[in-house]
């Protein structure tokens, strides 16, 4: 029982990070109709910014919680500006371009961001500290890892705020209106350019948060987000690109299944089993678990 719980919690921990990243992907997809393949690389860059800030601040003021929090916040501020600039410089000019054209732009963005990260920060691997450094302890047979609980807690709060914004506020109405029908939204007075800009900023912040939190497990290097990024896309497809709750469930499901299958069935075959199963789900529900298929009247 303890090992089962252990695996579920570890699954929720990584799964919630996939979910954060997936939310960013879906938000951008729905508002600006672009699949942002560079989401992971952008998160990696923000991760490097967090790491460098943390190193510098620690050298100057000592390695304390305060310097870590300052580095974290600094990286999120960077992500805000980063998302704004990427939308403005790379995506806005291609607004009327084709879907494929815009996707290729984000593929190019992978090269640009990855190349700049290598040039600016080097290609070495660095160890990043955990958010919560309190050592793990046992309660009964259950290993309690405070950092894991912190990650789950933090991502839950972030998702709660995001869902509140989208579901309950006028800004959320603007986001959903733009996501559903950009032209009509503009004609009804919604500043869709601003909405798209804000969506990119939020998505970049979500990615950066996932990146910084996963960094202690993956280390900080230029390919650190490859796995998270791929799984966040799978989470988005599994949950359904047309809903905001779907990617969250998708991310958690992948995280938990990954752990359970690895522990109980086969560690060697777990990737094959998990993703084989996901393909089965998509055969049954092609629009994703929560995706809505819109029938068009003719």
């Amino acid at each position, binding site marked *: 029982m303890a090992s089962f719980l252990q695996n579920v919690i570890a699954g929720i921990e990584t799964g919630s990070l996939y979910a954060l990243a997936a939310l960013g992907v879906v938000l951008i997809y729905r508002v600006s109709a672009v699949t942002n393949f560079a989401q992971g690389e952008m998160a990696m860059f923000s991760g490097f910014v967090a790491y460098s800030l943390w190193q510098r601040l620690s050298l100057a003021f000592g390695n304390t919680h305060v310097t870590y929090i300052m580095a974290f916040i600094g990286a999120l501020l960077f992500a805000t500006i980063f998302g704004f600039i990427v939308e403005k410089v790379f995506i806005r000019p291609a607004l009327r371009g084709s879907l494929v054209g815009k996707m290729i732009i984000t593929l190019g963005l992978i090269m640009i961001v990855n190349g700049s990260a290598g040039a600016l920060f080097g290609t070495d691997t660095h160890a990043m500290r955990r958010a919560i450094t309190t050592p793990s302890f046992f309660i009964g047979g259950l290993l309690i890892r405070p950092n894991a609980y912190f990650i789950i807690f933090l991502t839950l709060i972030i998702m709660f705020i995001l869902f509140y*914004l989208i579901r309950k506020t*006028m800004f959320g109405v603007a986001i959903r209106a733009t996501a559903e029908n950009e032209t*009509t939204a503009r*004609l009804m007075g919604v500043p869709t350019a601003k909405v798209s800009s804000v969506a990119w900023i939020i998505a970049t912040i979500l990615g950066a948060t996932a990146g910084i939190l996963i960094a202690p497990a993956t280390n900080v290097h230029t390919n650190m987000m490859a796995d998270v990024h791929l799984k966040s896309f799978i989470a988005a497809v599994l949950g359904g690109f047309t809903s905001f709750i779907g990617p969250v469930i998708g991310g958690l499901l992948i995280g938990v299944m990954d752990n359970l299958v690895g522990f109980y069935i086969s560690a060697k075959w777990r990737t094959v089993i998990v993703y084989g199963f996901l393909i089965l789900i998509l055969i049954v529900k092609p629009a994703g678990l929560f995706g809505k298929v819109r029938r068009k009247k003719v």
Partner: protein
Amino acid sequence: MKILKIEDLSISFGGLKAVDRVSFEVEENSIYGLIGPNGAGKTTIFNCISRFYTPDEGKVLFTSKTGEEINLLDYRVEEVIGKGLARTFQNVELFKMMTVLDNITVGLHREMKGNILFEGFKLPMIKREEEKAKNKAREVMKFLGIDGIENQPAAAQPYGIQKLIELARALVSEPKVIILDEPAAGMNGSETKELAKLITKIRDHYKTTILLVEHDMGLVMDICERICAINFGKKIAEGTPKEIQDNIAVQEAYLGKGDEEDA
């Protein structure tokens, strides 16, 4: 006072001149009709006025909410509604996955103060403003007789109600001019009669001006004070319903020339 003046409006698509030097003026607080056979360019003119298209030539002079006369062509699409000009669509364009109330509050976005990025964080002030917006939306729903469906999805509503929701979305912004693009499309005779009453009621209650594009001649002749007839992108006649009915050019546009029928 003339609230809307269209001057020498022209627009071409490829080689086709869809609208050719059309001018007309709309009196404040009136119901003005724009008629013409299919493909005459009516909706194109509407799309130019609401800034969805940018015309090649001409002016759209509009007396805005603040009382100054502006050329709408100097403004962006999403700014037009804030100046006091709102519209509905020929094919109902609702946000189908959103609730009825959310759909209607979309029409209020131009009026919301507060930076949309920080909206979630300035709760008390924004909350009051959002409550105000929602109350305004409920009021309009009540006026149109569609209250009680606030939290239902828009897609679940019957076609007639969807048209009213769209009308509510335009009305909630308290426009000085409201453009209705074929409001009677898809309606039967008795529904159209109801609509005629409703349009007049809206004009009187909201002290607004109504510009109407419509195929249903009965409706147009019934409620419009002045009418402009368009054919092949050109204005062929303007006047009262009676004058339009008696106009030879209009009769020819709709029914064809007399000698053609003999042939």
